[in-house]
């Protein structure tokens, strides 16, 4: 390391390693899930359902006035 090299805060190399490992593990899970799931031709959201009255897909029968 030269004197002009930017000094990193303590533990950042460790943090970087942990982070990249976590990201790699997460991406492996994503790819694993994708490859074991049935194929679909559309990107969907719960709100796309006609019976949904909330972004999470809650049916209108539950969300109407009470």
């Amino acid at each position: 390391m030269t004197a002009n090299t930017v000094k990193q805060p303590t533990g950042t190399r460790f943090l970087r390693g942990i982070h990249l490992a976590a990201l790699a593990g997460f991406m492996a899970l994503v790819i694993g899930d994708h490859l074991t799931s049935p194929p679909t031709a559309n990107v969907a959201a719960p709100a796309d359902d006609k019976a949904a009255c909330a972004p999470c897909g809650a049916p209108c029968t539950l969300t109407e006035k009470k």
Partner: protein
Amino acid sequence: MDKVGVATRGTHQNRTAPTGAAQHQRAGVVLSALPLGLTWLGLAGLVGIDTGVKGISLFLLGSLLGGAFLGFQYGFASGWRRWLETGDGLPVAAHFLLVGLCMLVFIPATHGIFDGALFDVAARGTIAPVATSLVIGAFLFGIGMQLANGCGSGVLFTFGGGSGRMLVALPFFVLGSLLGSFLVPTALGWGSFGKVAIAGDTSWPFQLAINLALVGLVGGWFFWRRDKQQATNKWRGLVIGSVLIAALCWLVLLISGHPWGVTFGFTLWGAKIATALSVPVSDFAFWQWAGPAQALQQSVLANSSSLMDIGMLLGAAITAIIGKTYASAAWPNQRQMLAAAIGGLLMGVGARLAFGCNIGAFLAGIASGSAHGWLWFVMAMLGSLVGLKIRPLFGFQRD
């Protein structure tokens, strides 16, 4: 919001480093960014095979949003904290600028004006019920976002940028979101006024004008309450960030058919992991509703929120590595890690009870002319106020 990489960005030392060290740094950036870039391309390929151009477009938009949020350090939690602690309303004014810009497309779209504009999609805004669960959920979310130092989008892009705090907050957000999904069907029985669209029975130009006036009034008030000594420098970045993010949000709406949402993706990830651990997730009422049930059966890349979240993570990570800010801040102490865990959990539960986070409920709700977005804003701001009172217990100091 965590400030990732403040420690190394643009220092004088950086600019005057000798050629050898600079080359070494450049090589390091390329070596770090390359695997992430290849991962991005691999995922884009998988998405493209199944869902074609629409899927790739949303993945790309998520990535660009991750880069934009990180690049502009566009934080909701930190902006609201600044308002509550110092009385500087500038960041909150910028958030309302973003809402107003999104509204220009969201309200006409809800009236069918842009039907079929892209991918033969009938785009609609987010109108959700004004319910008791929303009041409780948004309040919990507000507390959580101050304890975790980030909101829905903030946790995601700072995690991507290499924040140690978010390494803890995100898994707890996912867990809380799953727990929230178990609670929602019961919570919806606590009372509701149903969906309320502000001036929703009028023509779209009139509804847009009324809602823009409301946003202008509130946003203008926050702008008037800005810290005038610091405003000039900050305002430019906030305006550019708001315009860029709004343009990306328009595209998300027109391509996916609904506004950008962050937290359903977290709920889905939690449900997938729990299912893999033999938890009978699909037996719970929430996961028997048509939309969530379908999402649980399909790939995490086939749900728009989850897909864009993954894009946002990667987009932020690649941006941080290129900007040499990736994971450059030190680890927070144990008390702050505990705060991140509690904050993540509260945000997860809160987001499910409140029909979304600062993006899906506040931004999308108000921009679509829905009263629930305004109620979310008020309750989350009150929750933030409580969160600020709790922060010193975890060793946080005022910004």
